[in-house]
């Protein structure tokens, strides 16, 4: 992975637009897409990698795309629980005191989570959330 990234950077893809992760729950895989842009040739390129969903570990691309990659990796670590090996600064970016599972996974039901954590069935005004 890192070798590919290094080669692509050498070829002119110096701008990392974003790292986009998608959760393929049936295949039990995470697909990680690195969206790259070359200022020299004006070409858009998507580098993808599939990793195991149960033990999501992948090499960090900080050595290639620097601090920009660092913050993108932090976001995906927080939302999907992907461990970027080599990124020493994996701390939550958006959430505060989050105790649930990584929120952007497909098996995370936010409606259920909010209902269980923040609503009370006994409360007359909130009872409606429990009726289907």
């Amino acid at each position: 992975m890192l070798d590919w990234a290094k080669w692509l950077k050498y070829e002119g893809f110096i701008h990392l637009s974003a790292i986009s992760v998608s959760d393929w729950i049936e295949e039990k895989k995470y697909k990680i897409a690195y969206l790259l842009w070359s200022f020299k040739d004006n070409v858009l390129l998507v580098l993808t990698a599939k990793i195991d969903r149960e033990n999501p570990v992948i090499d960090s691309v900080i050595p290639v795309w620097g601090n920009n990659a660092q913050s993108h990796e932090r976001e995906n670590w927080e939302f999907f629980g992907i461990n970027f090996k080599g990124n020493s600064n994996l701390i939550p970016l958006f959430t505060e005191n989050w105790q649930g599972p990584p929120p952007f996974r497909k098996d995370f039901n936010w409606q259920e989570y909010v209902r269980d954590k923040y609503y009370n069935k006994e409360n007359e005004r909130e009872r409606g959330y429990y009726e289907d």
Partner: protein
Amino acid sequence: MKERGDIMKINQEMSVLPKSNEYDFYFGPCHPGSGNFGVKLKVKGEKIISALSDPGYLHRGFEKLMEYRLPLQNAMLSDRICVFESLAWNLVHAEAMEELMDLEIPERAKYIRVIMVELSRIQSHLIWWGVLSAGIGFDTGFKIAFGYRDYILDLFADITGGRVYPAGYICPGGLRRNFPMGIEEKIGKVLDKIYEAFKYIETGNPTFLSRTKGIGVLNLEKAISLGATGPVLRASGLKTDIRKDDPYEVYNRFNFEIPVREEGDIYSRYMIGLEEIKESVKILKQAFEDLPKGEVILPKFKKPKLNMKIKEGEVYVHNEIARGEGGMHIISNGGIRPYRVKVRGPSFSHMIPVLEYLLQGAEIADVPAIYWSLNVCPADLDR
């Protein structure tokens, strides 16, 4: 009885007063000069030793929410990604959906899209000018900029029905409605007004220059490695603009320049913003000259079916929005809702790595100036 020296020693040990002048300083997120975003600063005296961006105050989980909604609902949601330029985000979403569905929209719709997005860029740059003026203590500039921006918001109200949020005006398949009667003249008058605003812009005032020149310098190498795009990158010396490099809609038919500066400081970013307003006016004039007549929406989207399937596939669309590269990466598995939506906001890079880098070693008084000179929008970072 204790000796005087002992008491001094005890006092020192208890350290009633801090031993050094280092302290933590939290800028935002409820501060009027920060806008829903916080930066944790470590400060020694007046100098900042380190800065840590702390987003999340405005996080609404749009990426997840969009997986639960239909494309036409998402068009409305895409306004809210950034308050300052909702039309530009409308366009990014609509283009991504059209690419997934293989749609070719009517010619007139393409022109109107360009007109709307350029108007949106002008009002966004006016905000930039306004908040940067406020950031350096030039409050009159703030009021003038927001006053002139209001003329454009009135146009938006006439055309889309909403001043700030157009409620999905640019939707997959075209536009929700055609231009109202006589809007061309109105837009022409507003553009004259915008030129009028330029005579108030302070660029030679020594106080203004001392607060902006040589401060917050971002060199080109750093700008690229930290992921800067758009006006921030152009102010550091790289001539790049997605409207020219990877044209979308009908941008390849218009003549316009890409303003570039070398210095990379606050002043150069400010000047880039002003020059871009002039370029946008140029594009608008050309667009009105050859605006074709006809429909603005595809027939099958006039009364759209709710269970319309999105073709299986994956697409990344990026546009040059006022702040830089705004993109959407949408994956569909053939259902009626997108499987995954990833929003790439330009402020993500500008507010985390770039801002942290620029604030190191800066003075406290320069924090708002550096912060707003990056043309940031906390909303598109937090999504």
